[in-house]
């Protein structure tokens, strides 16, 4: 899509704001509607937009699949380890109350870490799914459809 000047300029303008909005949704997850899933999908949408406009090869240089492949399991592990932390501090599995002195603070810490783990996983998995499908061989011809 080298020649689509308007698309390139507009998406370059939009992508930072999409990511910023994603982060807003992410870090407001403990106060208002939002959280890791939604934020993850919004940021992944930015990555997919980038890949659509500038091509999957360039997208793969910026968002390296190898790193994404590590980020996805790390997010899940962050989630699970928060649960183990509560367990180690004396509570039930995933009982955020035990994560800090004060119950409310503990809930905030717990929700934010867990949601961050979800965010990491959702971003990387959505981007990986797109890159994996888009990066497959281009052997499907137009007249096959």
């Amino acid at each position: 899509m080298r020649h689509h000047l308007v698309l390139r300029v507009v998406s370059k303008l939009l992508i930072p704001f999409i990511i910023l909005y994603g982060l807003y949704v992410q870090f407001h997850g403990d106060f208002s509607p939002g959280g890791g899933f939604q934020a993850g999908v919004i940021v992944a949408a930015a990555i997919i937009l980038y890949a659509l406009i500038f091509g999957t090869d360039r997208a793969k240089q910026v968002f390296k699949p190898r790193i994404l492949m590590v980020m996805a399991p790390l997010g899940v592990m962050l989630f699970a380890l928060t649960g183990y932390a509560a367990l180690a501090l004396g509570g039930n599995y995933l009982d955020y109350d035990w994560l800090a002195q004060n119950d409310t603070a503990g809930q905030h810490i717990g929700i934010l870490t867990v949601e961050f783990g979800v965010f990491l996983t959702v971003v990387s998995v959505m981007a990986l799914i797109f890159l994996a499908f888009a990066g497959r061989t281009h052997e499907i011809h137009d007249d096959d459809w």
Partner: protein
Amino acid sequence: MLELFLAKYNYWIVILLMMIGLYVVVARGNLVKKIIGLNVFQTSVFVMYISLGKVAGGTAPVLTGKNELFSNPLPHVLILTAIVVGVATTALGLAIVVRVREAYGTIEDDEIEEIERQDMAGDLEGRRR
């Protein structure tokens, strides 16, 4: 009659979507279209859950200090999970379709069946040897 239809319109939408989805899954031979049908079918369930959580006049369940009437947030949370499951199923299904296309050269049900019949005949041939 019409009033029954209008008062419970959300269920009619759910039933309609469900039937369309199941019909596509059963009646279409194209593997990708079957997945689309599956998605429509799952969407009907999402709509069902969400609509049953709605409280007339209720707002989003965010505590603002005022004594407000809230919609039931639990179905939303459940459906968020179900949507994620749906996305994972779709992605996996499409991934398998891509592999099927690479292995068989087609994603039409009947053509794949024909090729598999030949595979099976090949197996039987091996048995007679």
